[in-house]
């Protein structure tokens, strides 16, 4: 953490986006996490993605639970709505908020402790229902706030800072999200913003449950030799399935790719995710193949990153429930109360 407030002064060339904000306007308070925490890089990636997408900060709701990762919404989008829920209960609160007002952008930020242990049941059902949200798990495999015990996502055989070997099997949140029907599943690495920022942008523009597992090294307790979530380990074992650009129709970002097949994924409102395939036969459209691929690679000790699965024709909870087009919180007594005549009719039908 740091004691001074980040200076207000910014680079003279810093420009405004179409919403009239500079990138600095999307920042929050200065982080109180440990220096070098991967979570801070994820916050910076969220700031960058929201700025690039011209998002109106007051149309965003950021929700989190408890833990290092769940503290981070304080450090970005200070002009957005925020909700720090009870430990592990972010998915339920988010689902409720989404049902009440479907017009906001829901950003669920959680960690491996909050989502994979105490909140696993919550996580499972929010994904299963297809709540329209971006669900980011800042995954460091360790309980940082309580000084470095293994979390549920710690790999079997990985070593703690004190040298203890983990004997429990890890919980694979990407695998679970795929199995539970998430329509957008990705994995990123906090140390690679060029991959993470487009992933977050694509997820924001995705309609339905978008899940991103971001490996985020804990510099204080899980960045040593023997850890499988350290900067060095992830860099050495990172197997990117694809590289992507997110194109929202406004301007095309051209990146010089050496070679590789390009796949354009068009999402519901016309935005395009342009993927360059890195792993030969990998297709992000095939849920079963994605699961197989992940298992194969994981068995070889590799960490697969990139956009792993996307359903171009996705639906969300409101679609499933066939709710009215107006957000529920905007319905007045007129729309909600059918009147005494209708009530009498219903009552009569039940007699």
């Amino acid at each position, binding site marked *: *953490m*740091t*004691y*001074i*407030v*980040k*200076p*207000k*002064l*910014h*680079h*003279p*060339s*810093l420009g405004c986006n179409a919403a009239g904000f500079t990138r*600095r306007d999307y920042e929050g308070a*200065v*982080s109180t996490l*440990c*220096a*070098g*925490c*991967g979570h*801070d*890089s994820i*916050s*910076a990636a969220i700031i960058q993605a929201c700025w690039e997408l011209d998002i109106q900060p007051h149309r965003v709701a950021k929700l989190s639970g408890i833990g290092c990762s769940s503290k981070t919404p304080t450090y970005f989008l200070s002009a957005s709505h925020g909700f720090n829920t009870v430990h592990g209960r972010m998915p339920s609160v988010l689902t409720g908020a989404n049902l009440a007002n479907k017009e906001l952008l829901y950003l669920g930020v959680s960690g491996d402790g909050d989502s994979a242990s105490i909140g696993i049941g919550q996580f499972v059902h929010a994904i299963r229902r297809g709540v329209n949200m971006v669900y980011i798990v800042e995954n460091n495999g360790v309980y940082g706030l309580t000084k470095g015990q293994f979390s549920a996502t710690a790999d079997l055989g990985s070593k703690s800072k004190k040298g203890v070997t983990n004997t429990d099997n890890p919980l694979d949140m990407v695998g679970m999200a795929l199995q539970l029907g998430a329509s957008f599943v990705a994995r990123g690495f*906090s*140390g690679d*913003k060029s991959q993470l920022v487009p992933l977050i942008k694509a997820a924001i523009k995705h309609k339905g449950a978008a899940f991103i597992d971001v490996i985020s*090294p804990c*510099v*204080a307790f899980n*960045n040593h030799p023997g850890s499988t979530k350290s*900067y*060095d380990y992830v*860099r050495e074992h990172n197997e990117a399935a694809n590289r992507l650009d997110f194109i929202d129709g406004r301007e095309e970002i051209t990146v010089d790719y050496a070679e590789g097949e390009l796949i354009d994924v068009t999402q519901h409102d016309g935005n395009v995710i342009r993927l360059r395939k890195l792993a030969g036969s990998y297709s992000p459209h095939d849920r079963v193949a994605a699961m197989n691929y992940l298992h194969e690679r994981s068995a070889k000790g590799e960490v697969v990153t990139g956009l792993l699965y996307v359903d171009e024709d996705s639906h969300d909870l409101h679609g499933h429930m066939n709710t009215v087009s107006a957000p529920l919180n905007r319905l007045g007594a007129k729309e909600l109360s059918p009147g005494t005549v209708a009530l009498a009719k219903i009552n009569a039908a039940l007699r």
Partner: protein
Amino acid sequence: MKPTDIRKPDYFHKVVDCQWACPAHTPVPEYIRLIAAGRHDDAYLINWKSNVFPGILGRTCDRPCEPACRRGRVEENNGEKPEPVAICRLKRVCADNKDSDAIRARMPKPAAKKNGKRIACVGAGPASLTVARDLAPLGYHVTVFEADAKGGGFMRTQVPRFRLPEEVIDEEVGYILDLGVEFRGNTRIDSMKDLLAQNFDAIFVGSGAPRGRDLEIPGRREAAANIHIGLDWLASVYFEHIKKIGRRVIVLGGGNTAMDCCRSSRRLGGEDVKVIVRSGFEEMKASPWEKEDAQHEGIPILNYLVPKSFVHENGKLTGMTFEKVRAEHDAKGRRKLVPTGEPDAFFECDDVLIAVGQENAFPWIERDAGIDFGEWDMPVVDKVTMQSSNRQVFFGGDAAFGPKNIIWAVAHGHDAAVSIDKWLSGEDIHERPEPGVSLISQKMGIHEWSYDNDISNDVRYVVPWRDKAQTLKSIKTEVELGFDATSAFAEAQRCLNCDVQTVFSKDVCIECDACVDICPMDCITFTNNGDEAELRAHLSAPAMNLAQALYVSDSLKTGRVMVKDEDVCLHCGLCAERCPTGAWDMRKFFLEMTHAGPGCHKHAKKEAA
């Protein structure tokens, strides 16, 4: 790009823009911090060591440091008007608030033992006095010859008292003369050959550029009684030979002397005083703040008027006519003044002050004294050593390369003193001494630094002025009051501490991006290496100020390099605070020029090695 070699003193020196821009390379941020800490004596002595006249310069310096100040760039697009730190006026704060007795006690003492070598300085202006100050404590017998009764030169006789009180000159000239310097006032040197015959071991010429340029146009001779050369007129005002001027005054010229002339006129009875310049207002040589000061006193500045004639009746000046011109630029971009064709302008006046430039004049140097004269009848002087073709004779200040300013004169004086000291020790004077440099970590704790890294958002503070009604009454009443303690502290806090350098150690970097994410100015990028133009275009924020360096590391673990654009770094230290491994550290770079003395000698270098 190749990794930056931060061991070369120039690299970090350039980052300290103010110090780099200062001809005498005064360690500006260091003394500003001391002022903020209320340590005025220490701040004064740092100044005194490098620029010799802190009190005088704190009021009159041409301040090349301020246009260079990083604060001016940092505030661009961040508020109303970007402004540098008021470096010059902060300098005055330490001079005004120091304890003079304590300062005197800390000054060098006259040499206990003379070394038997005699040096003559011609003129007692800032250049000569600097030579005297540097050499006298080393044991040289320095004799300063001055045509006037007191030392100070232009600073005393031409700079008006409402800008620079005489006590300040007396005090700071006194510090030097107290070092055992022999001062010979009322002694004009009118023959170089005679001086050479007196067997001095070295002669330093710091006689300035004393001649004001005249304007030979019709009516000049006829109306001469009311037409004055600005420089001479200012001196006459100082000596109180002139105590008043006509009600309507025209000042010709756009330099700082013109500004001093018009403001002095306002105080000597001139009610309708105007400055008239040939070219555009923007092109005037006067410092912007001096133009503002004149305008503040109700003096209009009229431009694009070329003097045509002095109009007189019965031998008495009645006014001046001017041709109206406009600026045109030819294909090569050179500016030309072209008549507009409009009728000439006529302005009534009682007196005219001509301040259209000053010239060097060496009628007293015989052309067969072994000193070569070159273009424009100027002595041929080596730009580094200040030596003339007569190897015994050195030049400095305005006498060397034409009119400049006090701080350049001081810098020349230091250089000449080094040359004289080395030359008289039988050394090669072209081998210049390296500056003294240190680079020390400022880390005191996890988030604690020995400097205040919290960046002030304040805009530049204005120095308070005495009431105009009062200042226009007397030519001796100083206009500026100087910062009070509160505003001095607040202004000092605007300094970005550019001397506290961001130092990167690539071996411990884990490329976590923490520094990139926290940097408020987007200075830091981790990227694949490339040539400079390529890198400048692809950083987090484009690095388009080519005058500012890129700090490039060697290859990191991922094969990328760290690139930092020095341009608008706030030196806030957040990169170092957020760095988990200490790859970034904030280290204070202190550079002091090596002046004459043991440090500039060859053996000193060998010992250090």
